[in-house]
């Protein structure tokens, strides 16, 4: 192996030669494996991957996402999930079953244009746009809270190892933090100040994602801000 674990690599940089597999964001050319994106090199077993620092959100099945309704169609809604593809939420994938087809006006009462929904990706492949569902615990229209828009590549850092970061955020800001895999994160608190501090913490994590001691520094920032609120 040529690159070291956690080394910053650019597109076209040689990662390894020989009996390795080319994993995510790498490619093979002959016996050599190269990076395809700017990110941190890593190896899992004998599979080489590059963890990207930036990039668009590409939906995966089972992802929880937060999207904005952009249009109402004959049998469902079009949803912007910040991906290169508009998503569809069919009426049949919402928990409210009326036993009859809902007309466009009824659909609009459920979710209107501009509303935010918490949904799950149930289908997506190269040939068609992502399909969403709001049948599921906690899914559906988002009615309160403050929104942060984070680079999707940083969402794992917001959650942290075994949820350590997000648990700390929730406890210290007294807000519920709901991260969408597509980079949209909700902070729902009892007052707007708590929500604002939570959102500031989220942007701080995004800016300093690859530093050490981040959890402690974010906690310190929150405690400082929370004084007197």
């Amino acid at each position: 192996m040529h690159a070291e674990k956690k080394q910053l690599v650019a597109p076209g940089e040689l990662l390894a030669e020989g009996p390795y597999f080319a994993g995510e964001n790498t490619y093979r050319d002959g016996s050599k494996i190269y990076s395809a994106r700017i990110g941190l090199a890593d190896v899992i077993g004998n599979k080489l991957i590059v963890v990207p620092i930036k990039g668009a959100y590409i939906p995966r099945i089972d992802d929880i996402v937060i999207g904005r309704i952009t249009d109402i169609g004959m049998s469902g809604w079009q949803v912007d999930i910040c991906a290169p593809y508009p998503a569809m939420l069919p009426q049949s994938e919402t928990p409210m079953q009326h036993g009859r087809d809902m007309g466009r006006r009824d659909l609009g009462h459920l979710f209107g244009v501009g509303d935010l929904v918490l949904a799950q990706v149930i289908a997506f492949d190269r040939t068609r746009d992502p399909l969403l569902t709001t049948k599921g615990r906690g899914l559906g229209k988002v009615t309160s809270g403050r929104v942060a828009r984070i680079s999707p590549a940083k969402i794992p850092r917001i959650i942290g190892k075994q949820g350590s970061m997000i648990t700390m955020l929730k406890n210290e800001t007294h807000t519920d933090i709901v991260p969408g895999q597509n980079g949209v994160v909700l902070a729902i608190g009892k007052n707007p100040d708590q929500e604002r501090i939570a959102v500031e913490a989220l942007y701080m994590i995004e800016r300093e994602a690859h530093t050490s001691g981040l959890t402690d520094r974010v906690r310190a920032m929150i405690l400082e801000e929370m004084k007197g609120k």
Partner: protein
Amino acid sequence: MGGQKKTAQLIDSNGLRVDGRRIDELRPIKLEVGILDKADGSAYIEHGKNKILAAVYGPREAHPKHIALADRAVVRCRYHMAPFSTEERKSPAPSRRELELSKVIRESLEPSIMSEYFPRATIDIFIEVLQADAGTRCAGITSAALALADAGIPMKELVAGCAAGKIEGKVVLDLSDIEDKQGEADLPVALMARSNVVSLLQMDGSLTLDEFNQAFEMATEACRKIYEMQREALKTKYHIVRDVEEKNEIVEAKA
């Protein structure tokens, strides 16, 4: 300001050019990555007196829908010069030259872009020349490649561009504006350094086979040097040190 007068001599008796460079010397290059807020990826280059901003949006939804391709992303490229970028003011409307350059620049970058990752989407590349001093398409390619990497778009490798040419019968590297206007040949080249393949090649003027080989060698060698500068610029932008579990170093990330 004012009109350009014809310079008596482009290469003096010491073999130095108008700006003091030797025959095989590159103009100074400065690169900066990620300087725009709204674009997905961006880079700024100063190559000699050239000042060029490149930005990338994508992958994003195809608008209008009918341009989308079933099996990969559509790559679009717009090379455009600001009205104040040249000696004489340039009309903001796209010229035939800008349209041609948009095409050849796209064709120099697209071979490296792994567009099959994003079927039915578009990747848009914008190159704005704020100040021009010859070699803008090459500098545009150099900065656009960085902007693509900055946007997190999967690429086989970076692409770098540089031109060589002939002035007063001598083959020289990296023509400046006055040398381009009064010289005998201009040869822009773009190279993918890792796999050593050429993705842009044009020629304007007259060269013997020997002169061509010399100029081509000079230009490709310069592209390799510029590639190292691109890597440096990316690493400066995303300077990251080891993960906290391995070493307890205090780190500064310039995000």
